[in-house]
């Protein structure tokens, strides 16, 4: 392996070096600073005589005398089942003081695309125990369902609750606890405090032993964030599709990941896309999110819950926007609900699970599930609309029916959505609460529910106040 001391330019996270042999695109590079520190990077562009290198750990300390070594291969993640229970840094090095990792295999971290013909359509209901999710935005195995949040909102509590409670009810009695998920946690640029929150929870609940943690913290190099989720997903794919695990991947915070992309793009003086983010951000994000799914003939699955904080709570910002265009729905956290004390503060109206339709119903959840959820959406939307009007004309000016919708919306938030982070509801419990609420409305209004289901479930004698839980 040849060493070069030929750095010609250093700019932000990028280093340009002259070479006299062909270097492969995407290859891994080691740069040794005069102080003896070794940094890793990746070839971003390779031309005859010169290469552009993106340095993961930042270019601080690199000068023109640093030596550059090309490793002749693209970036790999050493994978083994023994990774479960381990804590690694953002580029896959153990930081838990445990033994060295003896890999079974080394996998390219830029995963190849799954052939759409080889995919299996995801349709196994995951019970998260959270009504706003299970009842209204059902998650299934192999889905990618992000949490769209804002700074300071309790998205981590929701993610942890899901990680703790998620089961596939049919399999819950398997003798080997077959329905438990292995959790891959990929942190990108989160604060040490947030990281502790996660680690404490993992340790407290014993989840750590079925988890692999990748930690890139706020004070770790930003460029490293571009490899962290790829390391995490490579591990997830290995465990799912070679070792039959059902894997839940939590990636947080995708916003920091995108900022890192923007930084690299700026350093390369690329023509920026919307709001300064690279024009290829859609493709780049798709190469992460599309690594969720199921594969024909393989036991395991990769389910993704990426978390992102929307700058300015704006869901048209490029980060949530492009994410929403790739993922199979989104769970939307809401600042107003949060200040009302609703836990979790999920606003179901802009939330969506696109894989819900095939994952619910008779034999999967319950035959009334789809209708109940449709009707609750419509009723809550109606109630929400009326709230605006009430502010202007007052409740008295509204009809009886309108007032019922207003009450419905209130109780929907208080009883259905607000359940706390420690309550684990079965899907039956969730749907029964749904019927309690729907029965506030006259039968005629339930036009999205099948008549037979109304007969079976509608509470004829719904008293005005059911004791709140």
């Amino acid at each position, binding site marked *: 392996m040849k060493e070069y001391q030929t750095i010609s330019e250093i700019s932000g996270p990028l280093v340009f070096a002259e070479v006299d042999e062909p270097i*492969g*695109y*995407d*290859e891994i590079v080691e740069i040794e600073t005069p102080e003896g520190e070794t940094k890793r990077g990746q070839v971003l562009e*390779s*031309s*005859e005589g010169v290469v552009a290198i993106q340095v993961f750990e930042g270019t601080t300390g690199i000068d023109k005398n640093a030596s550059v070594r090309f490793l002749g291969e*693209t970036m790999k993640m050493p994978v083994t089942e023994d990774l479960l229970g381990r804590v690694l840094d953002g580029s896959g090095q153990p930081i838990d003081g445990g033994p060295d990792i003896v890999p079974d295999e080394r996998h390219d971290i830029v995963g*190849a*695309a*799954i*052939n*759409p*013909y*080889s*995919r*299996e*359509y*995801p349709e196994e209901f995951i019970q998260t125990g959270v009504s706003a999710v299970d009842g209204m935005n059902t998650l299934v195995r192999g889905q990618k369902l992000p949490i769209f949040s804002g700074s300071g909102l309790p998205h981590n509590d929701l993610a942890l609750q899901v990680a703790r409670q998620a089961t596939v009810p049919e399999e819950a009695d398997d003798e080997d606890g077959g329905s438990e998920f292995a959790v891959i946690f990929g942190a990108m640029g989160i604060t040490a405090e947030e990281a502790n929150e996660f680690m404490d929870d993992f340790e407290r609940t014993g989840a750590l032993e079925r988890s692999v943690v990748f930690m890139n913290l706020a004070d770790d190099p930003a460029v490293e964030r571009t490899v962290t989720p790829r390391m995490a997903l490579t591990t997830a794919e290995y465990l799912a*599709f070679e070792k039959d695990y059902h894997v839940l991947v939590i990636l947080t915070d995708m916003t920091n990941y995108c900022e890192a992309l923007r930084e690299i793009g700026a350093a390369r003086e*690329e*023509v920026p*896309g919307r709001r300064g983010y690279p*024009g*290829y951000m*859609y*493709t780049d994000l*798709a190469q992460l999110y*599309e*690594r969720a*799914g199921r*594969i024909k*003939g*393989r036991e395991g699955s990769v389910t993704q819950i990426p978390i992102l904080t929307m700058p300015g709570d704006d869901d*048209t*910002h*490029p980060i949530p926007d*492009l994410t*929403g*265009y*790739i993922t199979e729905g*989104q769970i939307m956290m809401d600042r107003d609900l949060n200040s009302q004390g609703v836990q979790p503060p999920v606003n179901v*109206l*802009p939330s*969506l699970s696109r*894989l819900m*339709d095939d994952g619910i119903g008779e034999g999967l959840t319950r035959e009334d599930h*789809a209708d109940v959820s449709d009707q609750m*959406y*419509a009723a809550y*939307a*109606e109630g929400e609309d009326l709230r605006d*009007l009430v502010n*202007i*004309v007052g409740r008295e*000016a*509204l*009809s009886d029916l309108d007032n019922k919708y207003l009450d419905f919306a209130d109780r929907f938030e208080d009883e259905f959505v607000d359940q706390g982070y420690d309550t684990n509801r079965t899907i039956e419990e969730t749907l029964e609460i749904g019927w309690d609420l729907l029965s506030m409305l006259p039968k005629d209004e339930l*036009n999205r529910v099948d*008549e037979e289901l109304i007969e079976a479930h509608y509470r004829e004698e719904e008293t005005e106040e059911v004791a709140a839980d």
Partner: protein
Amino acid sequence: MSQTQESVREDGIIASVSGPVVTARDLDARMNDVVYVGDEGLMGEVIEIEGDITTIQVYEETSGVGPGEPVENTGDPLTVDLGPGLLDTIYDGVQRPLDVLETKMGSPYLDRGVDAPGIELEKEWEFDPTVEVGDVVEPGDVVGVVEETVTIDLKVMVPPDFEGGEVDSVESGSFTVTEPVVTLDNGEEITMRQEWPVREARPSATKKTPRKPLVSGQRILDGLFPIAKGGTAAIPGPFGSGKTVTQHSLAKFADADIIVYVGCGERGNEMTEVIDDFPELEDPSTGNPLMARTSLIANTSNMPVAARESCVYTGITIAEFYRDMGYDVALMADSTSRWAEAMREISSRLEEMPGEEGYPAYLSARLSEFYERAGAFENINGTEGSISAIGAVSPPGGDFSEPVTQNTLRIVKTFWALDADLAERRHFPAINWNESYSLYKEQLDPWFQENVDDDWPVERQWAVDVLDEEGELQEIVQLVGKDALPEDQQLTLEVASYLKEAYLQQNAFNPNDMYCPPEKTFAMLTTIHHFNDEAFKALEAGVPVEEIISIDAAPRLNRIAVQDDWKEFIAELEADIQEQLRELY
């Protein structure tokens, strides 16, 4: 992708690699030639030539590829293979069959450097000639028929770039697609397979004004904003508003002979869903499995971006091939925005001067070239065929003022505007009836009048008027509440709410509702109109609006759509409405 490589020109070597864009030195190539790049022979296409440097977009991942590696030129432009086997198949963006790739690669992941012909070369098909020795045939003429699927007979045609002449010999029986089945006196050999460069439209005789609707089975489309066979349509909308569900519904139920579905830069699972569902679902016009009339092209968001750029061309070329046989083809592209972004990505790597929002200046030209390939045609062989093109558009932030939406709207004649508000309240399809339009409406009316009901346009206009009025009234309601309106206006709101709930909404997942034949679309509308007329009579007779709108029968309007026997249901319902309302006065 085509396998034949005739005039191999001078090869070159790689000068630089940056993602999907590779430059080569010493390559003697023409624009759009297909080349094989690097030691692994990755497929690419020449997109720029400047002095000694040739720029190539590579259709596969380029990790590990470096300067100095060879570039081999095939001397041919990017072509597709056309022949039996296109239907009931799923391709990537450069027409490699994905099932074959799975077998060849022995893995569920898409590996690199593996090529596969677009149609199977060894498989034998039963060729049934329709010409005899001595007949004179011209380019485009049909010389025989192959039963490609249970639904579709593929017509074997003289390729458009042949000269034509007198038939010298004709075969009949089982042949592979490379064996000549007809030879002409000038030596031209006709096989069941043709090749065609994807970026070039196949020739036609003339383009005509489309006069027949592409019946979609979707009430709001057929009823208010119909598209013609040979028409163009755009469905823009923010994420999660229903573009894909609408495109899937069209692919399932539109009364076209052939469906070409292009999944361009979208989700893998959505294509899997089609692959799973279509073989099981019945084609409403023939009862055969839907796959038998469908060709799928899937270049998902995580697949190489250059192949995303080419996938719409692959799709439309396949569509033209069936049009040439006299079929009505419908092509769906989901999403044309991802195609435009692929152009932008390649363009920016070429450091071209960016236009609006970084898109290349030729964005608008490319979009119109694409939609221009749709239309109702008279073919060069005298038959008539059509291509309807329906493109989803994914505007950033759902803002329609962006370049792809705007450039598309300048071209297409049907506009189905999806609306985030409607989608949020689960009003599906979330097509905004105020913003959407169809410029084909009038020219299609005669067909609907002849085939459904004379009153088709009148009833539609009634619905549009009620919805318009509702829009205006809602603005007042927002300020003062519903009860402050005069009674007749309150009643109009009630009627409009049935139009919205019962007629405009359609559940794509309900077995009775997902497909709505035009007769049912019409009957549902007239039933609501009937309620309107009876209700206003009652109002005029002095019945308070509260009583009118709370008759038992009215909410049943919302249930027509899901009935097993809607005809009987409507008959009863209309009678009940009349009886219950007249009882009030």
